[in-house]
């Protein structure tokens, strides 16, 4: 097997390698196709620093430096990788199914006319073809897919599906500067961070979290009453923020906050992977949902299948009864 068997695209942001890169290297190892090469695409002067921080012990690092690659611009990444892949023909190019990967991977696949599977939770290599498992229909079923045979095939892997492996000795780094078109039609402008609000759900010991099943902003009072009785903080899943029922600072999810409370109560949350990835570290997870097949029940320790508008008031009442009419110190 040649030295460029499997390439892993190193994801970085604001000068730091993102943790998900370790998972991508682990996904590459799961294929058992020989040496793993990490590919760093970076702005001028960034390549060596980023290369040293690549997790998962790749056998080699290939680095490309260009001003257009500084912001991990999807168009520039696809263009630069396209040329390199054409020259060196790795068997597989892997990346993360992240905000970055969702942009450069389809663009690269289209540029190369190469097969791509996105959002894979498992990979396999049989008879020169890449196979993958991926969740479909909101995580209710999985699809077994196979890519056509091609000189190079591509995949992005779902964050949280492969266990990142540790770092060891830094491998040799080869740095070059690709030629890129003068204009890519797309320019990076700025990073923007959400302003810190009054609530920090990452510090909460107990979270009462609501999802789409809450139905309307007015219905939040049902969850608020339970949160108050438990001395808990109110959090939510994405549809609640999209509907402006709660501000973004309450959102548990890959695009929101990652939380690790002692107790997490998921009310009317179906359990999209972006949500589960950000709360699965909670000590005790309890879910209330009408749908017994909701993916949240696969990660919860305890569950109640039922109407949250009946279950939650009953739970609030039961909690208050146990406390004998008041929780000390919470008012």
């Amino acid at each position: 097997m040649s030295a460029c068997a499997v390439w892993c695209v190193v994801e970085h942001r604001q000068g730091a390698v993102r943790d998900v890169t370790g998972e991508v290297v682990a996904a590459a190892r799961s294929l058992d196709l020989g040496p793993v090469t990490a590919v760093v695409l970076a702005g001028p002067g960034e390549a060596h620093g980023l290369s040293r921080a690549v997790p998962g012990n790749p056998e080699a690092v290939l680095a490309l430096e260009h001003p257009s690659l500084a912001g991990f611009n999807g168009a520039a990444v696809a263009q630069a990788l396209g040329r390199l892949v054409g020259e060196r023909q790795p068997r597989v190019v892997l990346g993360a199914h992240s905000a970055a990967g969702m942009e450069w991977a389809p663009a690269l696949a289209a540029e190369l006319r190469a097969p791509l599977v996105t959002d894979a939770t498992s990979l396999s290599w049989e008879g020169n073809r890449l196979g993958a498992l991926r969740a479909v229909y909101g995580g209710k079923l999985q699809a077994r897919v196979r890519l056509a045979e091609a000189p190079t095939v591509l995949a992005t892997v779902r964050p949280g599906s492969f266990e990142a492996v540790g770092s060891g000795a830094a491998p040799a780094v080869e740095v070059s500067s690709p030629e890129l078109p003068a204009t890519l039609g797309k320019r990076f402008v700025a990073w923007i961070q959400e302003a810190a609000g009054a609530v920090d759900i990452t510090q909460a010991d107990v979270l009462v979290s609501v999802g789409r099943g809450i139905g309307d902003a007015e219905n939040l009072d049902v969850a608020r009453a339970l949160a108050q009785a438990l001395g808990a903080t109110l959090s939510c899943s994405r549809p609640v923020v999209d509907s402006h029922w709660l501000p973004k600072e309450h959102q548990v999810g890959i695009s929101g906050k990652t939380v690790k409370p002692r107790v997490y109560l998921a009310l009317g949350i179906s359990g999209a992977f972006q949500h589960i990835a950000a709360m699965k570290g909670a000590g005790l997870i309890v879910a209330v949902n009408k749908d017994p097949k909701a993916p949240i029940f696969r990660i919860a320790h305890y569950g109640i299948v039922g109407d949250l508008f009946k279950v939650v008031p009953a739970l609030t009442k039961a909690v208050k009864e146990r406390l004998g009419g008041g929780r000390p110190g919470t008012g």
Partner: protein
Amino acid sequence: MKLAVFVKHVPDTAEADLQVAAGGRSIKAAGLPFQMNEWDRFALEEAVKLKEASAGTLTAFLLGPEECEESLRRCLAVGADRAVRVWDPGLEGQGPAGAAAVLAAAVVGTPYDLYLCGAQASDDGYAMVGPTLAALLAVPCTTLVNRLEVTGSVAVCDRELEAGWTERVEVDLPALVTVQTGINEPRYVSVLGIRKARGKPVDLFDLAGPGLDRDQVGRLGSLLTVEALEPLPEGRAAELLGGAPDEAAARLAAILREKGGVL
């Protein structure tokens, strides 16, 4: 501005018990409610807002058989000037790259200033059609957009990243953007409004249509094959607390005290 939006008609599986159909590669659709893909509702709203602000035109495209037309009617009811359904029985089971190739063929003769797609579809979740379509149309692309502002020939887009971060980028028009949920509040469309839109024509673009490179569609369509749909492997499953709500709630309160250390 000349705008194009691409929408998909998908089953609403949120509370459905899904069954795999004979052949093992698709689900039994009978009895499932269908609707416009959630991400596409936001893309449509954004397109209509841009159309209204620029006194432009909006064409809606959908890939699918006749029973998917309701989502195109919805586009017409919301404000699209024209609706095009792209289909041929030979496209059944086409992978995402093939779907993009067919949609590209449907628009290639009449270039638009801005193409809008949902960031992904709720059924297969590839998140591939938009960026692949952009590549095939040779226009710049930006994905997961949750704020969009067009000034002259440039679109300023905020892209949603992880952990509360956003990336602001500029793309030169013509361009394609894929839209993240929450970018706007899709307007309410009454059933009557959708029914009224039934009177408007829906154009059909099929494989016999002009501009279609059949070889390219066939090649791209066969890059990815679904071999089987199957139940998820056994994972940790919640211990379910049954009984009436009061009964289940009382047991849960006890668990929160004993195992959760609260109360």
